[in-house]
């Protein structure tokens, strides 16, 4: 057992392998607090590997989503307004609950009605909500639908979507690695969700911090990053760590661990020590 000795961010510094002792799936609750910019196509394509209401995009669990789209139709009901929206990549129904809206933020009590008035058919709006699935049909429940007033926001949103997608699938750009303990760390926390089972926030925080200071190539996978950070934080191991031990302490499956270790070896940031199964990192 070992503590991560850095990056106890996010208020959840669990011991990495102490999952049995912590309550209620830390990975999932961590993902619940994330907000990711997405296209509607990504929402419709999102996978549900665990159950019908846990959505995964690019192997990363989704908490809240935000998108910019045009309103196709509006139907007002007793308790909610339903907006049918499309952004050029797909269309989805957005359910806007009044009660929830009132209780959400207190400073928008007065201009609520005028804000709704700005939401007309065919106008662009920014939605912030969460994905729900009912009878195999996905929709969004939300407490925030706001009209877009500066159309640069539309372009900005789609570029942000692309940047976040690339961050998760290829890692942060080199220029950002230096500050990945801060900014990138936020994304890394989202990453924690995807390895859901027993990934702790402390662990991913450490991953962010470590990869920030080193020369991990940009294309490296999240698992490999995590393992690298883990090895990096063990100061006692000049002889390296056994692959099985890595898998056990990081909570990554054996198969995935071998893959990730292979990646690290190929990239020359780690090397094998006394036998092929003991791995240490290069810049100890």
């Amino acid at each position, binding site marked *: 057992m070992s503590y991560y000795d850095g990056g106890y961010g996010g208020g959840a510094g669990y011991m990495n392998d102490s999952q049995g002792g912590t309550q209620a799936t830390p990975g999932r609750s961590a993902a619940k607090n994330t907000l990711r910019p997405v*296209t509607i*196509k*990504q929402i*419709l*394509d999102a996978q549900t590997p665990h159950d019908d209401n846990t959505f995964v995009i690019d192997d990363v669990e989704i908490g809240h989503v935000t998108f910019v789209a*045009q309103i196709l139709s509006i139907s007002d009901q007793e308790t909610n307004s339903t907006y049918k929206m*499309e952004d*050029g*990549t*797909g*269309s989805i129904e957005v359910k806007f609950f009044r009660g929830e809206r009132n209780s959400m933020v207190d400073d928008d009590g007065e201009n609520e009605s005028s804000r709704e008035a700005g939401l007309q058919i*065919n*106008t*662009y709006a920014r939605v912030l909500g969460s994905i729900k699935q009912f009878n195999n049909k996905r929709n969004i429940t939300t407490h925030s639908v706001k009209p877009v007033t*500066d*159309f*640069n926001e539309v*372009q*900005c949103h*789609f*570029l942000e*979507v*692309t940047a976040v*997608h*690339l961050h998760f699938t290829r890692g942060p750009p080199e220029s950002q690695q230096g500050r990945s303990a801060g900014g990138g760390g936020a994304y890394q926390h989202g990453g924690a969700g995807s390895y859901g089972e027993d990934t702790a926030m402390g662990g991913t925080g450490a991953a962010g911090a470590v990869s920030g200071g080193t020369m991990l190539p940009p294309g490296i996978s999240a698992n490999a990053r995590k393992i690298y950070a883990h090895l990096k934080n063990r100061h006692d191991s000049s002889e390296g760590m056994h692959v099985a031990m890595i898998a056990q302490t990081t909570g990554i499956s054996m198969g995935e661990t071998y893959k990730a270790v292979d990646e690290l070896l190929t990239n020359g940031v780690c090397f094998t020590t006394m036998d092929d199964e003991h791995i240490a990192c290069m810049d100890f």
Partner: protein
Amino acid sequence: MSDHQTPRVNASYVSNFTGQNVRIAGKVLQIHGNSATIDAQGTVAIQLDAGTHIKTVGNVVEVIGKVNGDQSIKELFSSDFGPNVELSAIEAVVQATHTYRELFYDAKQ
């Protein structure tokens, strides 16, 4: 689902989408009766709809429409984005759309 997809294109992508619906944003160059031309990294002719929002030369507009055989676009709907929209960002979105297509549209078979 893909019925609702309107990939964002510029003038050079238009020919890849003949017969399909697309979104194209650009600066209005000319308006003549029921046709207009916009600059979207190249000039594109738009066949205006009766309810068009393309009214001001110099403004940036986004047109949703069907690509005709002659590469002109028959407008279905348009939005006036006003004069102060960053054209380079529009072009960047077009490039991202086609480079990382999995985020934006399904290829027509």
